[in-house]
């Protein structure tokens, strides 16, 4: 799936439209947020995180990139010679830009619902367990087995062996906040 190549967008995004003081405040606040999230995974307290955790950090900051987009972002923050670690100094400016430009916005509930409905053309209101597995592991950016199992454990109604996606979405969204 082609990524949106966010990194190649011109750099005169929303930040440049704000008046300077506001932009500064926004940036300062973003810096603090990013630092906090980063530190949660900085186990050795040396301003680096394992590259495999960067996705979690980015997503917990409110962004919802696809795997492809994530891949590109990581390429931007990695060292010339990848070490398996990402340094905060490289991460901060890139992530700040992402937040300022409001890239990779989360998916609204109704769009999510429509996605499920696409997979359920007969409009039954549910997907069978097998169907869900098929779509999630064969289409799009496939799930790993672990991801699939975890999703199933919460989503599948054991009696009908299906996922009633409308209820599922509602439950997950409430849980978020």
């Amino acid at each position, binding site marked *: 799936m082609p990524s949106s190549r966010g990194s190649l967008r011109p750099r005169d995004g929303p930040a440049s439209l704000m008046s300077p003081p506001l932009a500064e405040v926004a940036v300062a606040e973003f810096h*603090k947020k990013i630092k906090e999230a980063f*530190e*949660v995974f900085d186990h050795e307290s040396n301003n680096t995180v394992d590259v495999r955790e960067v996705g979690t950090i980015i997503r917990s900051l409110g962004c919802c990139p696809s795997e492809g987009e994530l891949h590109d972002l990581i390429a931007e923050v990695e060292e010339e010679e990848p070490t398996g670690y990402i340094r905060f100094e490289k991460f901060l400016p890139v992530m700040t830009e992402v937040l300022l430009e409001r890239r990779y916005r989360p*998916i609204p509930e109704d769009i999510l619902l429509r996605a499920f409905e696409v997979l359920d053309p007969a409009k039954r209101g549910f997907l069978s367990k097998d169907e869900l597995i098929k779509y999630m592991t064969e289409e799009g950016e496939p799930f790993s087995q672990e991801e699939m199992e975890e999703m199933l454990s919460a989503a599948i109604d054991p009696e009908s062996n299906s996922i009633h996606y409308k209820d599922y979405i509602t439950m997950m969204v409430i849980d978020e*906040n």
Partner: protein
Amino acid sequence: MGSGTSTQHHFAFQNAEKAFRAAALIQRWYRRYVARLEMRRRCTWSIFQSIEYAGQQDQVKLHNFFSYLVDHFTPSSHNERDFLNRIFTEERSPQASETQNCGDYDSIEVPDSYTGPRLSFPLLPDHATALVEAFRRKQRLHARYVLNLLHEARKHLVQLPNINQVSTCYSEEITVCGDLHGQLDDLIFIFYKNGLPSPERAYVFNGDFVDRGKDSVEILMVLFAFMLVYPKEFHLNRGNHEDHIVNLRYGFTKEVMHKYKIHGKKILKLLQDVFCWLPLATLVDEKVLILHGGVSDRTDLELLAKLDRHKIVSTMRYKTRKENKKQAEEKGNANQTGSAGRPSPWFLPQSRSLPSSPLRPSTHKAHRAGRSSSVPCGVPLDPKELSRRVRRSVDLELERCRQQAGFPAIKEKEEPSSSESEVDSDAEEQPQPTPEEWRQVVDILWSDPMAQEGCRANTVRGGGCYFGPNVTERLLQKYHLQFLIRSHECKPEGYEFCHSRKVLTIFSASNYYEVGSNRGAYVKLGPELTPHIMQFQANKATHTLTMRQRISRVEESALRALREKLFAHSSDILVEFKKHDKDETGLIALSDWAAAVESVLHLGLPWRMLRPQLVSSLTDNKLAYKSWLENLAKEKLSQQNIQSSLLETLYRNRSNLETIFRIIDSDHSGSISLDEFRHTWKLFSSHMNIDITDDCICDLARSIDFNKDGHIDINEFLEAFRLVEQSCSGGDVSDCPQVTNSSNRDCSSPGAH
């Protein structure tokens, strides 16, 4: 082939693409969801850890305070001197004579109505197994057998070296377990899963058997029983919680006194001695070193092997008054950090020039403080001069004063009789450990590994060091070892390797912070001593929960603890908020909220991450802080009679207050006088620069005395905090083996006593 088919193809292709994109969208969304859950899990863990370590620092401060009292406080009245004396004379080293202890249990009769397990010595393997079974069925061992078992255990321990040598020639497998902290279910689970101890199945338990959990007594009984039955195969190391002073704060003392109302004190006294006879480390095949905390760059195994471990009663002990008078005279003004390696307590005037918050760097993980002098006090002194004769004459003097003042003779039960035997054992009295010996032991019981190279003072815990990979490497090389096994730190998976797999942390108390918070683990050493880790979680309920549910549950518990902390500091937080709200709008920006809260609590938590769970409603992206604080208070305010400001003070100092209570209540009667409480609290708070007026203290004391009888009963005291021992709320209480035992207070099962 016609246009029809190609349209079909076209539609088919379009549909396929739509499905593809729909799937991708769902996956994208789901991955974000999982990431947020993961972040919440980590934050929850940070909350628990930072609160736990902050509590440990409090503990250190408290004991530094008492040491300071002993060092410097000049009582202004007979009352005060008497009062202080009463506290500190209990802390004398236990008697060496055995004859005294023998009489401890022989005279205790076990009623016929007792249906609990009965022990006879020498113990047989069946007895030990039966004991496990009895405890599993929630029976309680009679005090007589407890004392007898402890007595036998002590006899055995005394013969052991400081560093136990174990060889795999004899047993085919060795299993090493970490902290259990009173969680009997975990121990039973380990025996069930891994098998009971036997000549072919050796075990090493690496300290911290007691405190926090509710079955510390039972765990000790089982461990000691197996130790007696399989002395060559069953080994115990001392942990930092095998320490009667630490026990005052973390629940073991409470548990013993609760379960054994009549004989508890005797049991505690004997335990005090038994704990100091526990070996300090175990060495397997001269290749794998097992000890509770860690090492430092000064760790000297030869010294550790040679010292008299029995002299180290507590890694946090405070000195007796008389010792210190001597010390004060001798050392004059030598209070500098470097002098003779004796650290000066952080709160003394000279040490104010040290880093501002000596025990609290900006995040609890930041090991940036240099080697500071804030180590637990109680560095023991020159031995010889502290003669019992001096002490006794002071006692006599005090007794006279007491009588003159018209005080009832305080029932210091052992005092009169022990002074006789003291004269006899004068010659055999144990000298104090040297500062170096003491430090060596503290290091191995308290240290934690860190990722960075080097060795720094462990300012988070207040004792021991942080040791880096180079320290480990040097030690392993120096003593030709393969790797180190230690415990002391809770890990989400129950274990963790570090220092290039040269250090293994093993922690066996599952669900330590809360049901679902972490797994427990144990490690089996196979041929060539390769480690095989086994994990477990001794609570069936967690298996049926989804990841989301498990995380929510633990999170709720952490948040509750955090909200309580916030409440406990409401006044200070309000002051900080106001600083950010000069215009008095009543609103505060979220960024300022985070800064304000951190500047008061110093927990180093990711407040912005936590914000959605702590702050529910915002106006215009700002928080109306007064009502937010009021809501925090509402959770606590249903407590009768106590105004919110007092309540806040209580909560803020809860653990310290409880510990102080237990220290004052040296005869474990469960009750202290208002005066004693007020007095100690006054000293403590002025010392800690806690801003609290005399009136406030009186009010506090009076409020806690619910039945207005001039005494504070420990139950009243705990009631003031609505202490619920285990909070199994929000989930299926019935599923939790660790169901709250607050109802057991009046338990009068036949097995009791």
